[in-house]
């Protein structure tokens, strides 16, 4: 049989696209190389009785419009807000974060009275930028070089968004988008630890340091989400991040879609310049009127499409697409609750994100290591213990701990990672935690270590880049992934891309998948079309 759409890869974006298409009446099939679904949004039992969110580990960006359209809550999805966090300082101090505004202010005031009050202005300013950018997430970027009515209309829409701002705000926004987070924070704050805490969102997943221009935008990328309207807040998916893709799959199946696991795509079939299906690793062919790749742009076009089918310029740009991985991950099963002596007993901070990098300088030095082809000697770790909130993932009293680590390069001094490199990386990270939580290592039952090598091998993220491509302006909006191909289409007719390599980029957001589906439905002349994104009032 011939499907209306064959989707390559059962990551969250592939599933989102598939679900929207299925709901519009298309016959869809998702093919996935792994035995499990979910791509980088998975819950996996890697130690008996322990569920791991072993790739992505927190949720904020996933668009509420999608959750609602695809009825994900009905299919079991629950997002739980988490509480605060802490940065542990060298020498035994700490900076705590609290959900309560006044408690948070008083805690910041321990480090700087001025900064405690400046934080409100800072948060207001960032919120202003978020409000500007959020409506763009669920729109297809216009091609500025095109005179087609839709591109012009979208450009006009962008112009109107700009037009709604004061001239000064436009100038400030241009400044914000292009500057470094270190410089941006210097305009508000004096305390190194406060700056160190706030800079985190500007480097997560990014091959930039906090002193790199353009890093302030990355901060926005992590702030523009929300948990139930609480902009910038992050939460857990109950049952681990796999709950998102599990709900998506259930939603897809309810709409009549199919998912085939355990056989990856070997080749995307192209006949007379049109994509007509895929050949799986076992030789099976799955035919479709259109093929949609959830894989990153490099993997899609350089590994699964015959280069002869593609224009040279396109191939050149895809080859030059920047997708350097910058992070690693440790997934840890704990026998008991770790203790951080710096925190007073009963403090809620342990139910949030825990960091051990108390200044921007330390982060930047970590980035210098990455540039030199080494993992950071004193890495930044974003440690979370989801089981402090979510009772479903481990036996009672035991915990799953996720540590997102930066920086880790795709290659070590130009060569591939070895197992010895991986173990050294693991020890560096565990030792850092042990420093702030004595006895920590004795609680460890099992550690899964994921360097960019493992991320690429298992999830298929080229070079281990969690965003399927770096988030710098040359690869954002109409430049993502390749100028002229930012509208989810490719040079090959009926071959589409819907992953995070496309606008608006990575994170468990679902927006690329939804936007891609919207383009396909529009082209197919489907009735109804998609609902508009929620208005920003």
């Amino acid at each position, binding site marked *: 049989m011939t499907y209306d759409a064959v989707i390559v890869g059962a990551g969250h974006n592939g599933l989102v696209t598939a679900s929207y298409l299925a709901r519009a009446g298309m016959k869809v099939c998702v093919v996935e190389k792994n035995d499990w679904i979910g791509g980088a949004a998975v819950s996996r039992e890697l130690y008996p009785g322990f569920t791991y969110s072993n790739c992505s580990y927190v949720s904020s960006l996933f668009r509420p419009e999608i959750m609602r359209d695809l009825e994900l809550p009905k299919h079991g999805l629950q997002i739980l807000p988490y509480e605060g966090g802490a940065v542990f300082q060298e020498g035994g101090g*700490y900076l*705590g974060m*609290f959900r*309560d505004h*006044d*408690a*948070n*202010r*008083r*805690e910041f005031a*321990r480090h700087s*009275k*001025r900064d405690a*009050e*400046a934080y*409100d*202005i800072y948060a*207001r300013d960032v*919120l*202003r930028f978020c*409000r500007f950018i959020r409506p763009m997430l669920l729109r297809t970027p216009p091609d500025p070089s095109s005179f087609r009515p839709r591109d012009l209309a979208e450009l006009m829409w962008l112009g109107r968004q700009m037009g709604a*701002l*004061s001239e000064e*705000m436009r100038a400030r926004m241009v400044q914000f988008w292009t500057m470094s987070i270190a410089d941006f924070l210097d305009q*508000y704050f004096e305390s190194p630890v406060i700056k160190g805490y706030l800079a985190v969102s500007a480097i997560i997943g990014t091959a930039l340091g906090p002193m790199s221009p353009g890093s302030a935008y990355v901060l926005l990328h992590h702030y523009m989400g929300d948990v139930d309207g609480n902009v910038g807040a992050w939460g857990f998916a109950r049952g681990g991040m796999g709950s998102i893709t599990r709900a998506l799959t259930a939603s897809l199946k309810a709409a009549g879609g199919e998912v085939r696991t355990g056989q990856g795509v070997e080749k995307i079939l192209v006949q007379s310049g049109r994509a007509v299906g895929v050949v799986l690793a076992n030789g099976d062919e799955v035919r479709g009127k259109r093929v949609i790749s959830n894989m990153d742009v490099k993997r899609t076009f350089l590994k699964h499409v015959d280069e002869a089918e593609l224009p040279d310029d396109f191939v050149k740009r895809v080859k030059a697409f920047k997708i350097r991985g910058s992070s690693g991950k440790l997934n840890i099963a704990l026998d008991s609750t770790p203790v951080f002596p710096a*925190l*007073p007993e*009963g*403090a*809620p*901070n342990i139910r949030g994100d825990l960091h051990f990098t108390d200044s921007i300088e330390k982060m930047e030095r970590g980035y210098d290591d990455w540039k030199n082809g080494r993992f950071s000697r004193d890495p930044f770790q974003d440690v979370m213990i989801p089981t402090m909130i979510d009772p479903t993932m481990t036996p009672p009293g035991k915990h799953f701990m996720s540590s997102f680590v930066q920086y880790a390069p795709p290659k070590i001094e130009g060569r591939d990672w070895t197992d010895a490199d991986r173990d050294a990386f693991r020890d560096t990270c565990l030792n850092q935690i042990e420093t702030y939580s004595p006895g920590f290592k004795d609680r460890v039952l099992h550690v899964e270590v994921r360097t960019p090598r493992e991320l690429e091998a298992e999830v298929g993220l080229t070079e281990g880049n969690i965003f399927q491509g770096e988030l710098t302006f040359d690869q954002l909006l109409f430049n993502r992934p390749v100028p002229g191909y930012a509208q989810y289409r490719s040079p090959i007719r009926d071959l589409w891309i819907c992953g995070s390599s496309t606008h608006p980029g990575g994170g468990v957001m679902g927006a690329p998948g939804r936007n891609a589906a919207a383009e396909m439905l529009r082209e197919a002349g489907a009735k109804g079309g998609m609902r508009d994104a929620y208005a920003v009032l």
Partner: protein
Amino acid sequence: MTVLTHFRTPLLQTPFHARTSAANVLNRWGPWGGYMTALCFGDADMEYTAIRNAASVYDLCPMVKYRITGKDAVGYLNRLTLRDAGKLPVGAVHYTGWTDDAGKLLDDGTLFRHGPEEYLICCQERHLPWFLASAEGFDVSVAEVTEDIAALSLQGPCSATVLAAAGFDVSTLKPFRMATFPFGKGQITISRTGFTGDLGYELWMTPGQALPLWDHLMQAGAPWGIRPIGTDALNLARIEAGFIITNMDFVPAHQAVREDRPRSPLELGLGWMIDWDKGHFTGRRALLAERERGPEWQMVGLDVPGNVSAEGSILYHNKRQEAGFVTAAAWSPALKASVAIAQVQSKYLKANDLWVEIYALRELQYAKLMLPVRVVERPFFNPARKRAMPPERT
């Protein structure tokens, strides 16, 4: 230094908490500037009545306070605020405001001059980054002293009498003046200021003096029916007095997320504050330009027909065109009228065809009213005893 117990007491207690919590039989509290503040102690109507009939005490401690000291204190405050701080005599107080470069109000507050080079600013919101940034180039120091000073407001026609009974003779203290009085082994400061539009005083002391003073005052005032009041009663009194409150009647420019929300002093009816001749101050050039072209909005008092509060209502021009919105409204017991404070676009104000759309909740069901409103002078309630010298004795 208090270390990380915020999660146990997210709201701080004021130095009067031992007494206010004992008196708060309803246990009705709200947050104010990070502190617990009583919304109502027992009966809001009787608490309001104490303000207008006898004597009331209100715990002012959460008010944010900054001390400005140094050689350039006058120059600094003249650049920071709208009025001329140099003209304020030592021992006097004035109501003032401050704006950003665009001339949009950041906050209003009272400025106390304690010495030639020493001032205290009391206000609703926090401004340390702005005050410090404004201090660059001036020989001043700016210190946030909220926790160092306890404050109690004593308001009502019997307030001078109660103070006299407590041993504080304020008969020569004029409005907007302050004086120190011995209390116990130390002394306290009393200013003839307030937020009720009635005769009243504010008492300033160290946190250690708070409880003894409270006890002393309550004992001395008992014959006149002195009682603690909560924010609900105070809010009614301030609406009658026509006073505006930050974040209730206007959004401070530093907090506004939406660019069209901030308002200038000219738009908020505070143009009278601006001393155009004192020299440069932040926002002056923008305000001059605004004065030239006329403010876009105006803050007005409204007389609303009928007896339903217009709280939260939208105003219309000619019943159709949105023209503004009500920021505060109440049925005034003192005036026997429904009054409101509102922001109205200037162009519709001139046309003088304003209507208010009120959704009145009556037994679970909203009744929609569209009523013509009349712009009236503020304060709505303005008794002579507020200003009388010597103050009324009862």
